[in-house]
């Protein structure tokens, strides 16, 4: 069975005009998003995340390469029948109410006329804004409008959700609600393609992450795989200076002086060598800790 979302050498080159030349926004992106996972799509500003989403939804044509959504080419409108999309900072006609927006999208999604109201109410309930169903969008806050966008993406029971910064503008309660909703959707067997800058959220909910840097894919896999495999060991000791510090650095240790003494940071692979060196120098061990790279650190290492 084909992946819900797949790209092959997907490339987008923007023509900036005769004098400015071209800019490669996306360079040979090849990814396969497995079914029933939350796929985190990371990258700094201008890395090509939104360009990728626009190519997946046929908002623009790729310069090279192909993409398929639910096993069909992205150029066919019917492909999007089972896709829910939340744009970054969604905009709706301000004179409409959330119910009217969702009824319109329910119509686009091909929901039967008699079931539209019910589907709209269910989506609003899922997004946690049922009480604002008949309030004009112009009267809603940014966070509530964002939730209307989430409800809009859920209408039509999509198999694949493409969400661009879903928690943007949401308060902590809204963020938590959205995070729980994403997990619930994944548990229902839906695939979620999530583009976000909030690395802590990605780390909490994503099963697979991909990191883009300047249009190129620099890492892709489960978060634990993307993060540095080797843990760091931190040994707290008395102040180390002069030749001792030099010997430790030679053994692969980063010596950081702090008020209580010195912290020796090194890769877990060097543990035996470092302990032997400390023993030979009669350095005391005050405490031993291990540190694993967070997704944020991995992101900074990969994309900065």
């Amino acid at each position: 069975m084909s992946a819900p979302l797949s790209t092959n050498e997907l490339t987008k080159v923007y023509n900036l005009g005769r004098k400015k030349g071209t800019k490669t926004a996306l360079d040979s992106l090849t990814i396969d998003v497995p079914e029933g996972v939350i796929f985190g799509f990371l990258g700094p500003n201008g890395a090509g995340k939104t360009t990728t989403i626009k190519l997946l939804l046929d908002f623009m044509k790729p310069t090279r390469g192909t993409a398929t959504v639910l096993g069909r080419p992205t150029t066919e409108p019917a492909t999007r029948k089972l896709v829910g999309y939340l744009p970054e900072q969604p905009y709706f006609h301000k004179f409409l109410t959330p119910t009217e927006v969702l009824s319109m999208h329910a119509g686009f999604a091909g929901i039967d006329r008699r079931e539209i109201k019910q589907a709209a109410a269910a989506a609003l309930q899922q997004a946690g804004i049922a009480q604002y169903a008949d309030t004009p969008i112009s009267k809603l806050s940014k966070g509530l409008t964002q939730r209307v966008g989430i409800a809009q993406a859920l209408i039509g029971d999509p198999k694949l959700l493409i969400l661009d910064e879903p928690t943007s503008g949401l308060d902590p309660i809204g963020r938590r609600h959205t995070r729980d909703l994403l997990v619930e959707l994944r548990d229902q067997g839906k695939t979620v393609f999530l583009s976000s800058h909030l690395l802590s959220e990605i780390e909490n909910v994503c099963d697979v992450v991909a990191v883009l840097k300047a249009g190129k894919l620099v890492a892709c896999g489960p978060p634990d795989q993307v993060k540095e495999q080797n843990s760091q060991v931190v040994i707290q000791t008395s102040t180390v200076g002069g030749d001792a510090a030099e010997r430790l650095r030679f053994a692969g240790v980063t010596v950081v002086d702090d008020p209580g003494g010195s912290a020796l940071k090194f890769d877990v692979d060097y543990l035996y060598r470092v302990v032997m060196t400390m023993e030979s120098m009669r350095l005391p061990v005050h405490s031993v800790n291990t540190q694993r790279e967070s997704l944020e650190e991995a992101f900074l290492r990969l994309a900065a």
Partner: protein
Amino acid sequence: MRPIWIIARMSVLENSRKHVFHVLCLLTLALIAGSTLLSIFTEGVQVKILKDLCMTSILFGGAALAITLGCTGIPNDVESRTIYPIIARPISRAQYVVGKFLGTMLTVSMGVIAMAAVFGVLIASYQHTFDPYLLLAVGFTLIEVCVIAAISTTISTLASPAITAVLTFLIYICGSIKIGYFGGLIDRATSGFVKVIYAAIYHALPNLECFNLKTALVHHDYVPVAYLAQVAIYGLCYAAFVLFLGTLGFARKEV
């Protein structure tokens, strides 16, 4: 068809809230009301003058509505990004363009019908009877407005609202003087190449004069049914072809 109607409905709701729609409708209604004052001074031909002035007002009002609403519909959606969630749905770009056009056309029709209703009441108060020619003249004005709205919508898929408005207005003016001006230019051209260029412009421009049944309304001239049918088919086909070009242009547009 369903997505087209949903987009058209949304477009009507959006257009009917625009200030320009209200201003143009009120301005035209004021012109129609003002025509009664002008016709007071021309005793004997009051009704004829009234019909002439009112039909001209309705035609210009309708054309202005078609240009302003047609040129802003799609670019505003792209600019405000309200288009994204819509075209992410299983609808084609062609359906989107046709829906926006229909929405524009329905809104313009609402305005023109309101103007025509006031005009009809005025004429009835003077003639003490309903003039059936009025329906004919307004009907063909709507077809003319349909052609203008199609041109405006098509150009707006590729250009900014300002450029669209200027180009559509130029085409409207040229289309209104096509037979008299461009027809003469072809005859007067000496070089074969220039003749071909003039002929190309002549045939590409819509013949908007043929929709103008003002004279028939004023003088109650007989207009053959075959001619009316031919003109109506011409107008609808021209609008459909122009709109088809618009859908082709918008299908390639990156949003």
